């Protein structure tokens, strides 16, 4: 609704995501909604089908470690320069996580299919990879426009919820993302889109062509919550750098479940009465 104020709170957003939702999150460097992820852990969400668009990082590792995730569909989970994702690795090796291993372009293409609400999309590559055997939901057909030309068909990904962190939104719910167009595909593909932002402006982001060109229209956005430093401890665009000390502490602590739980107590539950 063009008139209504579309803003809410991070806790409100977290509360609106039911258990067992299919939730798509962007790659850490594209705008992972870390404040919302912490709120989801605090709310004790369970049984998520987590889709990483296209790779997971700290957000995925924390949700996995906190027991929120039943299934993960991703092309990788990694903490980048900080190494392997310890809780992901432990959960896979323990067999407690349902894995849908993918590859980056397959997740992008399947989200585009979700955006178009077409049931599937073909993609080159993949054939000969053991991923194919690990993904019985992917099919290989002979290209109907070619001859003896096998090609993979991917079923569309149409998440229940897309959640993302962005620099700026306006009160109508338009969200500025700049060049991070994967966020727009996520919003188009998902049934509901929930957004945290560094700041909210009284201006209309669609009024001027330059900002409109990098904006997800409110049409796709259910609610926007202000969350200053909402990507912390990750870096966010050119606005703030990584909190190196926190990331090192995470990597050291999360080697064990007990250490991870201590990290949660301090940095997730401990923040409930503070900034978030």
């Amino acid at each position, binding site marked *: 609704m063009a008139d209504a104020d579309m803003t809410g709170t991070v806790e409100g957003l977290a509360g609106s995501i039911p258990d067992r939702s299919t939730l798509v999150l962007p*790659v850490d*460097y*594209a705008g992972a909604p870390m404040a919302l992820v912490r709120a989801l852990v605090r709310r004790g969400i369970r049984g998520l089908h987590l889709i990483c*668009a*296209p*790779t997971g990082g700290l957000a995925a590792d924390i949700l996995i470690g906190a027991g929120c995730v039943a299934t993960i569909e*991703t*092309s*990788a*989970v*990694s903490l*980048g*320069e900080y190494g*392997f*994702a310890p809780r*992901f*690795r432990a959960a*896979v*090796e*323990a*067999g407690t996580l349902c*894995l849908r*291993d*993918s*590859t*980056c*372009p*397959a997740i*992008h*293409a399947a989200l*585009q299919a979700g955006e178009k609400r077409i049931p599937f999309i073909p*993609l*080159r*590559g*993949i*054939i*000969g*990879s*053991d*991923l194919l055997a*690990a993904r019985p939901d992917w099919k290989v057909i002979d290209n109907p426009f070619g001859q*003896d*030309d*096998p*090609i993979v068909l991917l079923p569309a990904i149409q998440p229940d919820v897309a959640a993302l962190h962005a620099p700026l939104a306006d009160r109508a719910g338009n969200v500025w993302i700049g*060049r*991070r*167009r*994967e*966020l*727009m*595909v996520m919003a188009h593909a998902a049934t509901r889109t929930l957004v945290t932002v560094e700041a909210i402006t009284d201006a209309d982001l669609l009024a001027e062509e330059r900002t409109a060109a990098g904006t997800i229209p409110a049409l796709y956005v259910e609610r926007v919550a202000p969350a200053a430093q909402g990507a912390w401890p990750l870096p966010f*665009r*050119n606005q703030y750098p990584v909190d190196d000390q926190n990331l090192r502490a995470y990597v050291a602590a999360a080697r064990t479940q007990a250490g991870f739980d201590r990290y949660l107590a301090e940095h997730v539950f401990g923040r409930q009465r503070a900034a978030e």
Partner: protein
Amino acid sequence: MDASPQEFLITVLKRRIADARHIVVGALSPIPGSAALLARHESGGRIRVTIVGSARHTSFTDGGRELFDCAAQGRIDVFFLGGGQIDGAANVNMTGTGPYPTSTVRFPGAFGSAYLYYLVPRVYLFREEHSPRTLVAKVDFVTAPGSSPANVYRQGGAVGLLTNRCYMGFDRARRRFTLESVHPGHTIEDVAQATGFGFDRAEPVMTTPAPTMAELAALRGPLREAIGETYPRFAAAALRAA
């Protein structure tokens, strides 16, 4: 000037890619990334370099999918792949060791490998650790295959493998590596012992040339900041003082 091991590998890779038009570097690849930035620097900006995840070193404006579409369009010449295991047929395992899905050791995952390995004409395999653990007879999980049957659409693949011991070329038709050069301080026998797969030997096998003063000066001078913007921890650790 004495090069750090990383500086050495950067310049070896750089010489392989100096003729490219567009080099793409995946996430978590500071040595290939630095090699690409050095090649671009030496080309006077002619070479286009795209580093996944960098806001500065990118030509892309269409989101995460653009890299993959761009590769399919034939607009990317060079890409780099690592992997927890690489075998003698250039199969790459980025998924995990032991039985899938509950791997003995789980690696991060495929990233874009199961696609880009087919579509980028020149893929350089790069793995610093050269040991029977990383270079194996047969990978436990083929995340991306080194070759494909004739009827599978494939316009690219591995051209070579760089490790901390040597550079091997890969012949896609014969599905075999050939040892081309051994880095200073290592020997052919060294390499053979440390490699879990059989390979051919060039005649002669060369000694990999060390970095030149000019290369090191560029890396440690004008490129330090550009590399540090994308790989801050790497730049601090790997590049020596100018």
